[in-house]
């Protein structure tokens, strides 16, 4: 998909954002193609939100090149925003209004007639499964419901592209899955999704392609699968030892271990065959209190690239 010759919806080269002396985004390059689900994966403070706000035309570009929907955010911000859907990190709902009123007034910002606003609002409430909450105040809704309402609101102008800044941060697992399912359905309808996240499972589930951000820079780019293949082994053997003290493993099972990573509470051994490695270590009298063989994930990719974990 990344090699398709169509005009990209977003084109960024050397994109930079500085606040005074602080560089939030440091010369990043990326393109997003129509229909793609594109992710920014990285820990808090990596520069994901600043990048998204520049793309969403609510934060001026300090330096570099940025085109959104073929237009210049600096001079055509309003025209670009007219065609975008934006789900910001913090909900910005009108607590004093009802669920329905929130959608109606937001549609008005896009110059839709009240009749059209109401028609779309009814549809969208159904889409995010909030129809029965239509008349209730926003304040008492659960976090997951507020998030779904924000997503519905971002769709009122039938945008070609949706920017989601940490769409499920702070939600419980059930609420997260419901949001993912709705986003997946949008993706299937051909809407371009751009999201930031520090959850590797979110990135793996939703993104066709992603960039890994750390310290204001992009450190890797690819599909989740390609990134895992490139930067991690097939499997990981996680070992925990008594008193959190890892014994000296030098030379033990060395032919099976591609790389190891010592974390405060456990050691990760990267290997193509976790079971075989586990058996070899057992034969070498290594006795962990617990062990786990799992597939490598984007978390491992991030650890490899930055030496740190996504969520500390």
């Amino acid at each position, binding site marked *: 998909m990344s090699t398709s010759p169509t005009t990209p919806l977003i084109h960024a080269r050397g994109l930079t954002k500085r*606040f005074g002396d602080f560089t939030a985004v440091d010369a990043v390059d990326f393109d997003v193609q129509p229909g793609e689900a594109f992710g920014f994966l990285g820990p808090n403070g990596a520069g994901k939100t600043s990048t998204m706000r520049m793309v*969403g035309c*609510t*934060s*001026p570009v300090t330096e570099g090149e940025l085109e959104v929907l073929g237009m210049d955010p600096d001079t055509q*911000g*309003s*025209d670009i*925003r*007219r065609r*975008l859907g*934006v789900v*910001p990190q*913090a*909900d*910005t*709902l*009108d*607590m*004093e*209004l009802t669920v329905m*009123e929130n959608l*109606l*007034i*937001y549609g*008005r*910002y*896009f*110059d839709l007639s009240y009749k059209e606003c109401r028609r779309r609002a009814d549809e969208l409430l159904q889409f995010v499964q909030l129809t029965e909450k239509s008349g209730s105040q926003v304040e008492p809704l659960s976090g997951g419901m507020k998030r779904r309402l924000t997503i519905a*609101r*971002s769709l009122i*102008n039938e945008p070609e592209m949706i920017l989601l800044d940490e769409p499920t941060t702070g939600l419980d697992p059930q609420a997260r899955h419901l949001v993912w399912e709705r986003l997946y359905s949008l993706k299937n309808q051909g809407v371009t999704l751009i999201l930031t996240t520090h959850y590797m499972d979110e990135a793996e589930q939703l993104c066709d392609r992603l960039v890994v951000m750390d310290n204001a820079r992009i450190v890797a780019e690819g599909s989740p699968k390609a990134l895992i293949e490139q930067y991690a082994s097939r499997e990981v053997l996680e070992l925990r030892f008594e008193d959190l003290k890892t014994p000296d493993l030098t030379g033990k099972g060395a032919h099976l271990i591609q790389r190891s990573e010592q974390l405060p509470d456990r050691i990760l051994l990267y290997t193509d065959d976790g079971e075989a490695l586990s058996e070899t270590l057992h034969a070498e009298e290594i006795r962990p209190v617990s062990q786990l063989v799992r597939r490598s994930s984007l978390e491992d990719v991030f650890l490899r690239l930055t030496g740190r974990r996504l969520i500390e």
Partner: protein
Amino acid sequence: MTLRDNLRSVLRVVEHHAFVYRRTWQGSVFSTFLNPILYLAALGVGLGAFVDQSNPAGIEGVSYATFLAPGILVATAMNTATGESTYPVMAGIRWLKTYVGMILSPLSPRHVATGQLLWAGLRVTLGGIVFLGVMIAFGATDLPHALLMLPVTILTGLAFAAPIQAFAAAQTNDAPFATLFRFVIMPMFIFSGTFFPVTQLPELLQLVAYLTPLWHAVSLARGIALEMLDPVVALINVAYLCAMLVVGLLWSYRTFSRKLAE
């Protein structure tokens, strides 16, 4: 964007405020409508009875209630404008972030600031109309004079709302608002000629009073009500309030943009 587009966007922001007001108007009935009427009743009629008794010639040749009413009219415009331009602005930018939500749409920080100002102006207008109606009922003025005082009331509201919303947008918490009310708005309310002619003040304080925006508003409104308008003074009054409005609006473009789209 054409002027027409900009105007439409500003009206969308006003529409938003009207939407919210439809849900919350009960809370402001007291401050906007009842407070000024209570002032007029208690001071104008109650206290006024004593004032008029000891001073049969009247103040500026009229009863105390008639003298007081135009002062209360514009002082209330100041209070309403201040209220509308402080906490609601803080809520829009920081607490509820509804303004942050607005600029994710085609609306820009300038539209938000201009719409906020117009809304404050509308609230002042509404309060002004009701109070002018009460003034007519009290016999403190008549319809033609009231129609001339209404634009003065609106200008007063806008002149206060503009710089105050700019100031409010720049704050990180609401503590400075209490300071603003206590040390700027309240003293002006009392000493800028609302309740008594500033000529009653010691000379130095008189000069200070002439510099306050509320004195200019009172001078205009009372000048119309009592038909004692001095054209030169009136021109200075209008220019002062207009300058405040323009400078305040431009300042609020800066602070709104900085807070909403930095």
